[in-house]
């Protein structure tokens, strides 16, 4: 039988993508052209040049994929990556596609390293790869173990050796999930104050990150959108600066403002959270880099609001950080709603203009202070009395428990008002029935409605 194979032109045909050189030559040519282009024509027709860099890089990458075990192809790929980086370099504008230039430079180094590895005999190649594996996992371990309270040696290894590698590939996580303790949730509330041209009155709108329905259902179509906003609030707000040395001065400012309010019988005072175990519970100042981010957030919120309402004029944006603690099992057993407002700890983080400049001065008495939600008896007035009137009634040992140097001048009255609702040996549901929540965050923000009576859905004036 004669061979039928002879009749077929397919007899010697290989897979169409089996020759790397057309791809590599095309890629190199395109990338060399872009490098020249950037050198001569600078930033002219940038989208086309950048597109050509990406196309050339893909072609060179295609060649590597076809023949990944060829040292020559890999060396050419390194050259292609280098030319690609040159194609994105405009000397007059160093920021021009600088981060992608860095990626291409790293790719060139990796391709060169790979070319060296594949050129080695098998045993040495495996030794080389083994060294890379060890270094990679040493880097991972340095990120894991440098987190507090890890060994300092690993911290040094992370900071001085592996940080760039890990940050480039985003492998910096220490994987300390829910450790050392499961923590509360965080959020950011923005109160946008604006005027309308027709009446000049001041209106406001609360923009919440993340935003939830009253029953706790997220107001986003996809769960991921909600979780990203939750991360946005948490990553920005969970770190605060240590209480500064002039903590006493900060406390005195707070006290003086409250005493002034009391004496002048103007606004009700804004008391401290009465059961703070740590000073950070009373006062939480964001770190400097995070304060810069807050400015950016304010700009974004203002811009979005302005785009939605082009005819209004934004006066300012007050930012509040909210920490939401989970209820204790005992509270839950006693029937307290996990959404009870007293589980929220709001902090005032400054007022910003639409350009993101902080309007609130540094010496504002309530800046970075917690403005608590307190549950008190429904008959109780929101005007607390200072301790001075009864100061002789408490002994010094009790007064010494203040965490900040300054004594809290309203602690006795506030604690007395709040104490009945912290008892768990009584019928809590019955006690709550005759109570109200004082929302000092809303009072501070300027909302007229800052009192929530038990069972009511809307906040009301006092």
């Amino acid at each position, binding site marked *: *039988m004669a061979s039928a194979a002879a009749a077929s032109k397919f007899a010697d045909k290989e897979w169409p993508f089996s020759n790397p050189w057309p791809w590599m030559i095309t890629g190199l040519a395109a990338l060399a052209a872009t490098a020249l282009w950037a050198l001569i024509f600078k930033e002219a027709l940038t989208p086309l040049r950048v597109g050509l860099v990406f196309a050339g890089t893909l072609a060179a990458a295609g060649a590597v994929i076809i023949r990944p075990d060829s040292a020559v192809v890999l060396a050419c790929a390194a050259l292609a990556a280098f030319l690609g980086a040159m194609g994105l370099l405009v000397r007059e504008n160093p920021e021009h596609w600088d981060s992608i230039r860095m990626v291409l430079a790293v790719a060139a180094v990796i391709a060169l390293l790979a070319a060296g590895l594949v050129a080695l005999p098998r045993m040495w190649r495996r030794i080389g790869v083994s060294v890379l594996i060890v270094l990679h996992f040493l880097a991972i371990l340095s990120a894991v173990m440098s987190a507090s309270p890890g060994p300092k040696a690993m911290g040094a290894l992370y900071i001085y050796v592996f940080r760039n590698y890990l940050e480039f590939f985003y492998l910096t996580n220490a994987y300390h999930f829910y450790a050392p303790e499961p923590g509360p949730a965080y959020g950011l509330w923005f109160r946008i104050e604006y005027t309308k041209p027709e009446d000049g009155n001041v209106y406001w709108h609360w923009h919440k990150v993340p935003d939830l329905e009253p029953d706790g259902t997220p107001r986003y179509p996809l769960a991921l959108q909600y979780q990203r906003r939750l991360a946005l609030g948490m*990553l920005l707000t969970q770190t605060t600066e240590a209480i500064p040395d002039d903590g006493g001065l900060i406390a005195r400012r707070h006290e003086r403002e409250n005493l002034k309010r009391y004496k002048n019988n103007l606004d009700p005072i804004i008391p401290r959270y009465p059961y703070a175990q740590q000073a950070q519970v009373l006062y939480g100042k964001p770190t400097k880099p995070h304060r810069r981010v807050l400015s950016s957030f304010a700009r974004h919120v203002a811009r979005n609001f302005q785009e939605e309402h082009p005819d209004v004029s934004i006066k300012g944006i007050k930012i509040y950080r909210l920490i939401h603690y989970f209820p204790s099992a005992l509270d839950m057993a006693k029937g307290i709603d996990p959404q009870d407002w007293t589980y929220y700890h709001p902090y005032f983080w400054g007022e910003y203009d639409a350009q993101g400049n902080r309007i609130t001065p540094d010496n504002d008495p309530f800046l970075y202070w917690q403005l608590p939600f307190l549950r008190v008896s429904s008959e109780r007035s929101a005007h607390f009395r200072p301790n001075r009137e009864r100061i002789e009634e408490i002994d010094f040992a009790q007064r010494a428990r203040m965490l900040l140097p300054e004594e809290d001048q309203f602690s006795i009255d506030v604690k007395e008002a709040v104490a009945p609702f912290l008892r768990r040996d009584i019928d809590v549901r019955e006690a709550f029935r005759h109570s109200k929540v004082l929302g000092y965050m809303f009072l501070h923000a300027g909302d007229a409605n800052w009192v929530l009576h038990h069972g009511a859905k809307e906040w009301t004036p006092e």
Partner: protein
Amino acid sequence: MKTHMQAIAPVSPVAPQRLPWWKSFAEAWDRFFFRPGDPTTLGMMRICCGLIAVYTLIAFTWDLQNFFGEHAYLDLEERNAWRKEYPQTGLSGFQSPEPQEDRYFKKWGISKNMTSGQGMPIWSLWFHITEPTAMAITHWTIIGVTFLFTIGFCTRLTSALAWFGSLSYIHRSNFTVFGVDTMMTIALFYLMIGPSGAALSVDRLLKRWWLTFRALRRGGHGESRLPPGAEPTARLPALAVTPSVSANLAIRLFQIHTCIIYMSAGLSKLLGQSWWTGEAIWGTISELEFAPLQYGWYRAFLTFLCEHEWLWYLFMTGGTLFTLAFEIGFAFLVWGPRTRWVIIAMAVTLHGGIGMFMGLKTFSFMMLTLVMSFVPPEVIHRFLRALARGPTGLKLYYPVYLRKSVRAASVVHALDVWNQVELVGQVRKEGQPAHLVLETSQGESLSGMALKFRLIRILGIFRIFFPWNWLAVFRRTKEPFPEAPLPEAAGPAEVPGRWEEEVEVGPKGITAVKQKR
């Protein structure tokens, strides 16, 4: 039939030679990392990771400007300041330098000489593409590329592009990142290193099609005019998945990294008081922002637990101990064949709980994808076979002299991963149909659209997507299917050499099956 007998020298009873420790270690290391491995597990992980990545990226669509635009929450100006100047803190040394209150100090709150460096080596397309329309086009291109990666098309290229695309989002908006992104980055990184498209992929189907088509064409199939006396004949190639060193290496990297993640997560919990008192779980399941407290049934469940103190302690302590035992024990127990399934079952339980009670479904799915690296490829083969189970013993008759028919027959053979259909070439003859005919085991003959629909109904590769097949999967794993050898089920890597087949297809169907090592 001739039989070749190989003379085997008698083996003397000598005790095995004990290797020096470093040599044993080197051999064990070599076996562990550089033994060829079946890429099927990697392929399955690619599909799972790709699905999560596509969903994650689609979820960004509504927030493209909010998170990545020039005027995002963290706007471009500020993010650029961070990447160029952000103070990298060093270790507090024995002698701290005097702080200098210069411009840098005013900007970042720390003196420059107190830092170990400034800026971050981060990168993103969104640092450079800021025009909204261009952003939308780029965003959808990244989604498209990630989808191609998920289905395994041009996987070597699309895996690198998917990694590049995903990290572009993460580096641009680090304040919106959480666990799922961290794990996805790890998975995409290793899937890019390993041949994740070598199995369960479009690439694989294309390769199968090409090998079949070329073999048939080489044998003269599809030629309308053959030399006098020539008869079309062809040897179908072996289509088994080829084990590779890089597949095994990538799986090992996955496995080690997963162990580090769980070990770190477990040990860091031991620093917390509530993990010792057994109350930590309460903090995770009672948090309004994560737990489904908006549902009355869930709230009633929590209240019921709290009203029964002993039940509450049982649940919380049990959950806490379970979490610690799983996370710390994972790295020790997952390697043993006997304990592996116990620890994988614990992983499914834990992450199922996290998904249900803490709302972190994508994170849980991603973690289970990492755990999947410990699932042997044979189990995945068995699972897929159970899903794909369909009728066998079918014959596809195709006219060998028509190139179109040969191409169609090659497509069917490429898609027929579980050898359900036998190809039968037919020479030109009076009364023979000049088109494809499918003959079922019941003697039914189908052609045209009916043939296509029947193939979609019966071929395993399509049956995988039938929801009713998923319901019966556990029953079916015990049933033998199909009787014919499984070309996709490559032998485990430790078996030296594999049986491969060469099937000879002539005008009367399969004329010979040869097996070789």
